[in-house]
């Protein structure tokens, strides 16, 4: 019975992570379109939500990779999964509170590393794999996206000078809707599936699903709807940072930034790197500021964002390690997970209340 309860708590926590992933990452696709008034804020987040849900159904490759290829289900426990998810959610909420775009993917990877390390020792973590497939791409991807966006923005403004005002502004706004939609769809094919993979893995670990079985339909539906709902809620704080605070965005710039991000995102995805949409889009937005004029970028904010990226993995790992320790000390199959779930909910509620002291809504972006 205890194991069933733990499974339910892990699934609920995974869906909560998916929800935070959605509202944390709405900015990736839509911040520039909202900033240039290509789309009204509410319409933009609704479009992103629909495309995220659609993207979740396009491919199951990421879900399969997570549930079968990355972690050996015989070496992982439901307690480790729960701790990893709580670690990732915590970091998502803290960075949201500080209006900083950071990677939900890296938070989840950090959570898994922290919990697995405490559970099975340092041997449970493949350090070479983490460096080669997570840390290096995390450093390189935003630089590539930024470089592409610098050139793209420079060319977009060159072309825009040849256009009459109406055609240029309207045309680039329409283009932005297309490129932002592509980023939203790509986000759905990646991020919703991470949760599907985690839930599928939990079902396999629990023994209610055969290891060779595919992702159940209800899991696909639940994960798709959860990320869609999170996206629709709209992480207005991060949208404000990406769309207004980091650099001032004009329609040609927004189009160049989203096109560059979509292109690098899809290339990374094709080559199988566990990419971070947030890193790539942030790199592209900074690049679009440089491409227009170097001074347009608020470097102090960019430095804070990069600092948050550097801290993501160890911070999520540390929280997950603490949660794992607490869950097992309190009683792994029953009291521990229940108490931890209640504590996590209370902490999330407290963060929301703190955020309400300086609320950012659709009307602020």
């Amino acid at each position, binding site marked *: 019975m205890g194991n069933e309860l733990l499974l339910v708590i892990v699934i609920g926590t995974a869906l909560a992570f998916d929800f935070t992933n959605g509202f944390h990452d709405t900015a990736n696709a839509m911040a520039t379109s909202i900033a240039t008034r290509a789309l009204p804020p509410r319409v933009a987040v609704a479009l992103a939500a629909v495309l995220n849900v659609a993207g979740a159904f396009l491919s199951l490759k990421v879900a399969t990779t997570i549930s079968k290829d990355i972690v050996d289900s015989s070496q992982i426990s439901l307690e480790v999964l729960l701790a990893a998810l709580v670690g990732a959610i915590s970091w998502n909420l803290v960075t949201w509170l500080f209006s900083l775009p950071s990677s939900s993917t890296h938070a989840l990877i950090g959570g898994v590393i922290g919990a697995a390390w405490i559970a099975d020792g340092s041997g449970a973590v493949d350090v070479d794999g983490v460096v080669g497939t997570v840390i290096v791409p995390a450093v390189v991807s935003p630089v590539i996206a930024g470089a592409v966006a610098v050139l793209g923005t420079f060319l977009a403004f060159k072309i825009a000078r040849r256009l009459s005002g109406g055609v240029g502004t309207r045309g680039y706004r329409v283009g932005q809707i297309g490129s932002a939609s592509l980023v939203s769809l790509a986000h759905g094919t990646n991020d919703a599936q991470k949760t599907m993979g985690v839930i599928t893995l939990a079902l396999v670990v629990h023994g209610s699903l055969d290891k060779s079985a595919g992702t159940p339909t209800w899991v696909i539906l639940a994960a798709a709807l959860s990320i869609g709902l999170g996206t629709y809620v709209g992480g207005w704080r991060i949208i404000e940072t990406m769309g207004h605070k980091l650099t001032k965005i004009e329609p040609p710039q927004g189009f160049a930034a989203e096109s560059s991000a979509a*292109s690098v995102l899809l290339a990374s995805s094709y*080559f199988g790197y566990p990419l971070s949409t947030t890193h790539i889009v942030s790199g592209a937005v900074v690049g679009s500021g440089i491409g227009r004029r170097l001074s347009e970028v608020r470097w102090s904010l960019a430095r804070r964002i990069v600092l948050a990226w550097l801290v993501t993995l160890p911070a999520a790992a540390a929280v997950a390690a603490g949660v794992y320790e607490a869950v097992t000390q309190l009683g792994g199959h029953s009291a521990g997970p229940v108490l931890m779930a209640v504590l996590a909910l209370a902490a999330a509620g407290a963060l929301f209340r703190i955020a309400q002291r300086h609320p950012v809504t659709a009307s602020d972006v």
Partner: protein
Amino acid sequence: MPIAANLIKWDALGEEALIGLAGGVGLVVAYGGLLVALNARAQARAQGRRTAPAALAGGLFAVCVCVALLAIGFVAMTHKS
């Protein structure tokens, strides 16, 4: 450096950079070409002239490139390695 070479798939990263550059800049240039063609059409209409065949052909070519790039993006999305 040999350790880095073992850990990191530099070839794949290089390819990612090149494809990202070609796709991102290609889309900006192709879409820009389409807007230039639309602009030429709007100006010609305003002056009561017909649109120059070169502008029409350029616009059509730009549309084809944009659609091709979007299709490649969609394939990359659904066929992850």
